[in-house]
């Protein structure tokens, strides 16, 4: 009962005004585990993972990340965030910085890694996501898929313990989705602890140990990808799956 995972939600609630956006969430993510979060729009999936790095704050319950309790005065949130990579739906690359500068900015200024070392690591990471030839390109010169791969490299440059993905492929043209998913699969296979909000069920089947289905702010169902896709237990998850898997 008291075992602690890398990310531990215990009875977490959150309100936006009168709207109960997270309802009594209890969820534990083990180190090296990959958890996919899915559910209809407005179900609280993004809010759930945004709480983990404090982009949203919770009202009650406990949220413990990497052994540190959020909201505790002893927890240095800025420090904790360096251990958590966050990939946004809309990339949010720094438009005034090149791809390499995007990757090295936080390592140099936050992690205080020497510039030459950070740049070497940055080049290696951009090569790893297949963008060795784009190190000096600005975000506006890159396609959506390329921008999102830079954004993933930017997170990896901090050598995080956890990676969070908030609908990383939802803003992409269909032909660019697989290049981003391939990078995410590679990150997962290296043993990263990941929470991924996505409707890419192929990705979930391939690398996720668990699929969590949310609806109206609550976790309705949770299980292995095989269980969840072939034998959803609730009406709501069945209805959801029938909609996203129809085509």
């Amino acid at each position, binding site marked *: 009962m008291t075992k602690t995972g890398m990310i531990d939600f215990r009875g977490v609630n959150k309100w936006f005004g009168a709207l109960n956006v997270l309802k009594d969430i209890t969820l534990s993510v083990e180190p090296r585990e990959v958890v996919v979060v899915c559910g209809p729009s407005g179900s609280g999936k993004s809010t759930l993972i945004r709480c983990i790095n404090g982009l949203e704050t919770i009202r009650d319950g406990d949220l413990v990340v990497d052994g540190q309790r959020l909201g505790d005065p002893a927890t240095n949130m800025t420090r904790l965030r360096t251990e958590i990579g966050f990939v946004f739906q809309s990339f949010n690359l*720094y438009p005034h910085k090149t791809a390499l500068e995007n990757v090295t900015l936080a390592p140099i200024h936050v992690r205080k890694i020497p510039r030459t070392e950070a740049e070497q690591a940055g080049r290696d990471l951009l090569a790893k996501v297949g963008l060795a030839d784009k190190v000096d390109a600005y975000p506006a010169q890159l396609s959506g898929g390329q*921008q999102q791969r830079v954004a993933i490299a930017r997170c990896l440059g901090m050598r995080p313990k956890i990676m969070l993905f908030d609908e990383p492929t939802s803003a992409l043209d269909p032909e660019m989705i697989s290049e981003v998913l391939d990078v995410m699969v590679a990150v997962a296979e290296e043993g990263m602890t990941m929470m991924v909000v996505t409707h890419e069920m192929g990705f979930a089947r391939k690398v996720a140990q668990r699929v969590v289905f949310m609806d109206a702010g609550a976790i309705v169902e949770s299980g292995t990808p095989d269980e969840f896709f072939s034998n959803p237990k609730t009406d709501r998850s069945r209805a959801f799956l029938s909609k996203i898997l129809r085509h």
Partner: protein
Amino acid sequence: MLENFSFRTIVEYLPLFGQGLVTTVWLSLVSFAGALAVGIVLSAMNLQRGWLFRVPAKAYIDTVRATPLLAQLYFLYFGLPRLGFVLPELVVGILALSLNSGAYVAEIIRAGILSIPRGQVEAGVASGMTYVQRMRLVILPQAFKVTIPPLLGQAIVLVKDSALLSLISVAELTRAGQLLASDRFMPAEGFITIAAFYLLLYYCLKGLAALSGRWIGLQPARSST
């Protein structure tokens, strides 16, 4: 009609206009530097979440924008000495222009910072940057580019406003025109000449704005998201 227009007198007074022009240029430069300093402080106060700094900043900006510059100038020039602060008129003039223009500059800077998409702040937060790091590395470099053209516009306004300092006998460009008008009773010559000089200053600043616009155009575009 035009035979009454004396170019000779204008030429005769050119050294005076020259001095006035020089004074207008340097006091505008100093005042604009002051306005930037006032504007940066005010916008920083205005962007705080707590009311302690925000409310005084807003009150100041509203007061300055709601009252005429001439009234502000007269308050500083006639009012302050009665309260025990006697300052040379040039200092009063620069102070008035800096404090007045600073309120407008504050709003330009604030708008520039707020124009940076929320996602940029979040990207900085998520990578563990402090508020100061986010401002220095992410927000201000982007906001700077957005604010240059409106700041140059404000500089043009400031140069024209500096004409009011002639009313507290600062020997700037408009004062030179007034002197010609009253010494020789030649208001047409006096004020046409200063108009030509203001036009010259205007084109200089406009040229600078165009150059900065081209420089911004050469910079990497803002992302569409």
